[in-house]
């Protein structure tokens, strides 16, 4: 090993505390980047392979009932590769151990062999055979939730008859990677399951011989999706088509896409904060190192070391520090990626989903870290290189101090000598002070951004399920039903309040933009389902106009007063223009609301309803569920609290884990910044501080000069950091918002307080570490050595 390399290693060893602090910050950035980008790659590659291998369809549509021949007409459409017709029905299901009714989605599959599209992966058991009673396959997430094994059975009401479905296998399909019902905000694996049933059994159960009510289509390479969709709608129009849509509106595919988009955001944006801090830290550490090594640099140059060699020497030091961050960072990232993947497998069901480290993105993250580290240290290294050797031989000129603003204002007597020393020091290096403050501030911001998720979730649940949707149970019917059903519901055990709604599939369009959605017709008097505007004020439905989600208005590019066109996708398919009279605040999906009589008028109906919200007496809940399970017209029952609970149970652990990670990351930044700032301040001023000790100052007094400076920086940093945190959280809400899901920008005072406290403690801990060094300051040694 060359002597200069030995110098490098020994210098690093001397700097180990500071170098480690910087490496830890780099490691955090790399870890998050590797975790997100590798999981992203694993997820998107697994998804693509799954979609390809199991022939996931490109386009989807449901109809009321169409004869099989219609499929041939679809095959004729230019660009269509394959067509798979099916019978799909949601039915009420009775599961042992579950008081409330559950919803089973029955999907027909060919009696023998695989469907052409949306093929099935059999995890366990065998394919069902027709003629052996009702043999079915069950979706994996529902099976896992209820611990179903082949041979178990559930009961379901098929066309008014209670039937036993015998589970013969557990299956997965690319169509239901995430098992969530369209229109629901949260997946409820406990109360919603997918079942695959042989076609003949489905035809018999629902009187659908030689007919279908659902069709999937795959496209030829290069076909125009929009054109095929248009032709599909035309072909299916006569059969009660609810509008064809692509993968972008297919719920499971959509969720996966959004997840991938969010991972990409996390993988690219969050590490920037860490790398910026690392760059700053390296800058201060290296600037200091180089200024203490002025004379060594001069000596190297005097003996003929050329500028590039001196530059390379310090460059290698940066490289090693970065490497010390990159290697463990990648390992931690891989470990976290494994965890995230494991978590995903409980939500997203794939035949095979393993975490695999994405080498290119790991390399990219490493290179970016290295670049950030170099960028941070460039000026320091450059000044080392540029230093003329003769000048470097001479000690640095004394630092320039000037009277601070307090002297200029003539109020210096208000401040102690110590306070004045602190202020002058800060004023002499305002940029460094500002950057140190910013570093601590960023740590605070990381805490806020990392923790506000649970505030947002709390608010979302509170808003959505306590303020807006105040029902206990939602009942949906198979078909629009006369509103007299309200009286029937009213008489059910435990029902305190009933409000019925009409849900109408429509295509809302404004200019070239359009969206398919269920237009909700709400009763005039509403207690159980309230709407709020952007300022969270309750908003009333207009006599004849339409209210819509802010998100929907944004997607359609409409504002209040615009006239949108609603093409009804049901019955005689009328078209109606509606004036937008208000925008409402909501956090999931894209929704539009009118008064129920408006829908009656459009459809020419006499007060029809599609479902109802119920308020229920908790003591009679069980009886109500038992009755609902047997009501033939009831297609689904959603018990609000139960779904929230299931969701929270699943994510609570994850939330806690992510929060711990974020606290760890924020502490790494805060400690890194404070420790380095303090160490350098100590190194730069050890002579001054030792002199003070010689003059009779106590260690406490001397410490207060140094730590007072840090305290001042932290005092400025925390409020600034909270502000940055709020800004970053707002940006996060903005970037993570999707059509499916919007995160409310809510930060509780607790989160602010908690973030500030953690940073304060981290600062204090780092300060105490340095304080120990002040106690150990050797007065004689420090004064003897030439600085």
């Amino acid at each position, binding site marked *: 090993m060359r*002597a200069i390399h030995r110098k490098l290693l020994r210098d690093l060893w001397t700097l180990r505390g500071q170098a480690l602090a910087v490496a830890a910050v780099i490691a955090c950035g790399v870890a998050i980047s590797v975790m997100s980008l590798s999981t992203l790659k694993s997820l998107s590659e697994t998804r693509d392979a799954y979609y390809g291998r199991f022939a996931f369809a490109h386009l989807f549509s449901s109809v009321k009932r169409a004869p099989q021949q219609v499929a041939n007409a679809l095959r004729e459409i230019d660009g269509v590769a394959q067509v798979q017709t099916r019978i799909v029905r949601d039915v009420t299901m009775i599961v042992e151990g579950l008081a409330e009714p559950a919803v089973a989605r029955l999907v027909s599959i060919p009696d023998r062999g695989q469907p052409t599209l949306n093929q099935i992966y059999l995890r366990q058991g065998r394919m069902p055979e027709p003629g052996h009673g009702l043999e079915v396959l069950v979706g994996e997430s529902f099976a896992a939730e209820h611990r179903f094994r082949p041979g178990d059975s559930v009961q379901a009401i098929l066309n008014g008859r209670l039937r036993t479905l015998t589970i013969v296998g557990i299956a997965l399909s690319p169509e239901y990677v995430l098992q969530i019902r369209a229109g629901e905000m949260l997946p409820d694996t406990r109360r919603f399951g997918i079942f695959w049933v042989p076609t003949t059994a489905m035809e018999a159960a629902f009187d659908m011989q030689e007919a279908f009510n659902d069709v999937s289509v795959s496209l030829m390479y290069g076909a125009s999706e929009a054109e095929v969709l248009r032709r599909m709608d035309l072909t299916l129009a006569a059969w009660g088509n609810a509008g064809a849509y692509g993968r972008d509106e297919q719920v499971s595919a959509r969720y996966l896409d959004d997840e991938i988009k969010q991972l990409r955001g996390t993988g690219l944006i969050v590490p920037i904060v860490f790398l910026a801090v690392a760059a700053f830290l390296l800058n201060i550490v290296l600037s200091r190192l180089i200024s203490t090594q002025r004379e060594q640099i001069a000596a190297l140059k005097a003996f003929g*070391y050329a500028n590039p060699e001196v530059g390379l020497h310090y460059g290698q030091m940066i490289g090693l520090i970065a490497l010390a961050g990159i290697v463990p960072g990648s390992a931690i990232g891989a470990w976290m990626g494994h965890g995230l993947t494991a978590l995903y497998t409980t939500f997203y069901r794939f035949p095979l989903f393993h975490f695999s480290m994405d080498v290119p993105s790991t390399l990219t993250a490493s290179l970016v870290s290295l670049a950030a580290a170099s960028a941070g240290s460039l000026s320091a290294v450059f000044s080392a290189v540029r230093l*003329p050797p003769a000048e470097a031989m001479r000690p640095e000129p004394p630092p320039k101090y000037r009277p601070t603003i307090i002297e200029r204002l003539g109020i210096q007597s208000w401040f102690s000598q110590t306070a004045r020393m602190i202020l002058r020091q800060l004023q002499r290096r305002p940029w460094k002070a500002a950057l140190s403050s910013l570093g601590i501030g960023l740590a605070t911001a990381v805490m806020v951004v990392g923790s506000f998720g649970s505030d947002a979730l709390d608010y979302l649940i509170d808003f959505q399920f306590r303020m807006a949707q105040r029902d206990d149970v939602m009942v949906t019917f198979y078909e629009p039903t006369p509103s007299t059903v309200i009286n029937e519901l009213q008489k059910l055990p435990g029902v305190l309040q009933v409000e019925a709604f009409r849900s109408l599939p429509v295509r809302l369009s404004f200019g070239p933009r359009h969206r398919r959605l269920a237009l909700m017709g709400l009763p005039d008097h509403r207690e159980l389902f309230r709407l709020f505007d952007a300022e969270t004020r309750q908003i009333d439905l207009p006599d004849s106009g339409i209210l819509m989600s802010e998100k929907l208005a944004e997607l359609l590019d409409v504002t209040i007063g615009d006239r949108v066109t609603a093409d009804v996708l049901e019955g005689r398919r009328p078209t109606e223009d509606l004036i937008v009279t208000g925008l409402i605040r909501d956090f999931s999906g894209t929704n539009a609301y009118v008064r129920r009589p408006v829908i009656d008028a459009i459809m020419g109906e006499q007060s029809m309803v599609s479902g109802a919200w119920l308020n229920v007496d908790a003591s009679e809940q069980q009886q109500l569920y038992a009755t609902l399970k047997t009501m033939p017209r009831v297609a689904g029952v959603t018990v609000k609290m139960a779904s929230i609970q299931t969701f929270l149970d699943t994510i609570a652990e994850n939330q806690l884990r992510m929060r711990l990670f974020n606290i760890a990351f924020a502490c790494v930044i805060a400690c890194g910044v404070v420790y380095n700032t303090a160490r350098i301040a100590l190194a730069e001023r050890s002579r001054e501080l030792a002199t003070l000790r010689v003059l009779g100052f106590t260690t406490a007094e001397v410490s207060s000069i140094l730590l007072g400076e840090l305290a001042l920086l932290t005092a400025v940093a925390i409020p600034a950091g909270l502000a940055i945190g709020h800004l970053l959280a707002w940006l996060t809400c903005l970037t993570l918002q999707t059509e499916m899901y919007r995160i409310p920008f809510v930060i509780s005072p607790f989160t602010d307080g908690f973030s500030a406290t953690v940073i304060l403690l981290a600062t204090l801990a780092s300060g105490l570490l340095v304080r120990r060094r002040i106690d150990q300051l050797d007065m004689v040694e420090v004064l003897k050595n030439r600085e």
Partner: protein
Amino acid sequence: MRNFAGAVQLEELEDTPESSLRVVFETREVTRTYRMGEVDVLALRGTSIRLYEGEFVVLIGPSGSGKSTLLNILGALDVPSSGDVLFRGQSLTSMSDSQRTRFRREHVGFVFQFYNLIPSLTAEENVALVTEICDDPMQPSEALDLVGLKHRRHHFPSQMSGGEQQRVAIARAIAKRPGVLLCDEPTGALDVKTGVLVLEVIERVNRELGTTTAVITHNAAISAMADRVLSMSDGRLADEHRNSHKLAPHQIEW
């Protein structure tokens, strides 16, 4: 004593006995201005000197007389604000930064008042730092042997006395077999006994290796061991004299 000034001095030098020897260094009307913090300092005000092959020259003068500046300019650590510096007939002032680096690497050995050893490297490694970047150097151990410190080669600077550190610095300077050895106050931080030891090493290098040696000191006694003594004052060469009889370092008293 003669007081030379400017160009007159050069002409006078032509007639001195040294003119038969090869000129190693020649400075012509060299000036150097610094900016120190917020003030301009005129360190050299037009200095012209010559150094000859193999001679031992002592530069004396009070603090701020420009000795170190002159030495730094000779060693191409610094460039003059005006005037010219020739090394074996080649101008140093017209050299680029990298050429000056090359020049230092090949020809110059430096010894500093505060040793300027790399604290993180052992004695031998400090020497190796230099031998690794030049052609045909001595072995680091050989150089340390020359200064009598072979047995201390694995010690770090912090484990050695000032005199030992300075001898390591000398070993580091001569290990490359430089054409010139430039020493800036080599005994400035040392006590008499140790200082003598260090001077003996420098004298030995000059004698045995024939290395042209320039030593800066503000200690007039040391000038007794020089072939020639140049006195500097206020940025100019104030006086020059030749010792008819050189003293050995141990004969010097201060």
